[in-house]
């Protein structure tokens, strides 16, 4: 009789466990949302225009306007799209955690959340690494391919891009932690057939 009471107490304790984890997960998702949204916005609005005087005809100066936009580089376009998708994912997950606790599909809610989190982590990591190596190429150039660096001419563009990259890497680390926590939540889910036998 005492043993059964102990087991019942254990079951009650383990059902209280996820509560502090729920707040932690929500806070992490909020931080990751802000990080990826910041990366998207900063890189999306990344533009720099320079005006050079090319020639002088008489007294009029002929000017050439050169711009550096993020759309010129497919790696940065992928970066913006990946971070945008990741922030949408985080937003949907925050809404789902806050308002849609009852939503379920054949008991696969936790599995779907875990799989979507893993897909988002892979997406963010792809976008961040592509943009990082592209930025390194822009900063250092490549002497073997005769590619000159562009950061000395477009300093603001490079600075803003670097800031967006840092935000995206912070978002990546946070998403990695979130994904690990989602999988842990999936693994410690109490299985319905392993109940305590009560004679």
């Amino acid at each position, binding site marked *: 009789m005492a043993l059964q009471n102990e087991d019942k107490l254990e079951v009650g304790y383990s059902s209280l466990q996820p509560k502090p984890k729920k707040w932690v997960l929500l806070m992490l998702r909020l931080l990751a949302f802000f990080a990826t949204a910041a990366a998207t916005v900063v890189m999306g609005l990344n533009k720099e225009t320079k005006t050079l005087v090319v020639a002088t005809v008489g007294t009029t100066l002929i000017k050439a306007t050169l711009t550096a936009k993020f759309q010129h580089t497919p790696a940065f376009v992928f970066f913006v799209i990946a971070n945008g998708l990741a922030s949408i994912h985080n937003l949907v997950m925050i809404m789902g955690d806050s308002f849609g606790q009852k939503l379920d599909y054949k008991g696969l809610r936790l599995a779907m959340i875990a799989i979507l989190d*893993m897909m988002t*982590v*892979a997406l963010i990591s792809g976008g961040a690494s592509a943009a990082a*190596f*592209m930025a390194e190429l822009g900063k250092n150039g490549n002497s073997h*391919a005769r590619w*000159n660096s562009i950061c000395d001419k477009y300093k603001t563009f490079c600075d803003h891009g670097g800031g967006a990259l840092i935000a995206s890497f912070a978002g990546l680390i946070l998403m990695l932690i979130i994904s690990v926590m989602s*999988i842990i939540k999936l*693994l410690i889910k109490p299985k319905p057939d392993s109940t305590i036998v009560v004679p």
Partner: protein
Amino acid sequence: MAKINKIFSNILRLLAVAATVVAIVFMVTSHDSAQVLNLTFTAKYSYTPAFKFFVVGEAIAGGYTVISILLSFKTLFWRIIVFLDMVATVLLASSISAALAIAQVGKKGSAHAGWLPVCGQVPHFCDRVTVALLAGFAAAVIYFVILLCSLYAVL
């Protein structure tokens, strides 16, 4: 069901090892040189940090896959395999993305930055790198399926 899952996962892991090995071999053996206006123009994978990262990433993922195949004969699916598979998937996705970004610039150039494409001068290099990138992409996709199998096994 668990046994079928394990066998299927091991077959996929073998395919992934093969894909990573092909990617590494083709990337490392890709070098070409051309003479352009009295200048010798060589192209090697080690001239680009993105390709070096690609080789290292594939090597780590391939090595981990071999270890996981060998260990899967000893015990059943551990729960830790899910996390390690996720790390390997993220690493593969990251490697292939970085290499593809730089390879795209190499093939098409960047008119806005004044960078000329190099594939016209060193076609052999470009062909080998293309094969390596295809194999790397296949490895990433296969690894995502492996991850889903591992997740299903510990559900």
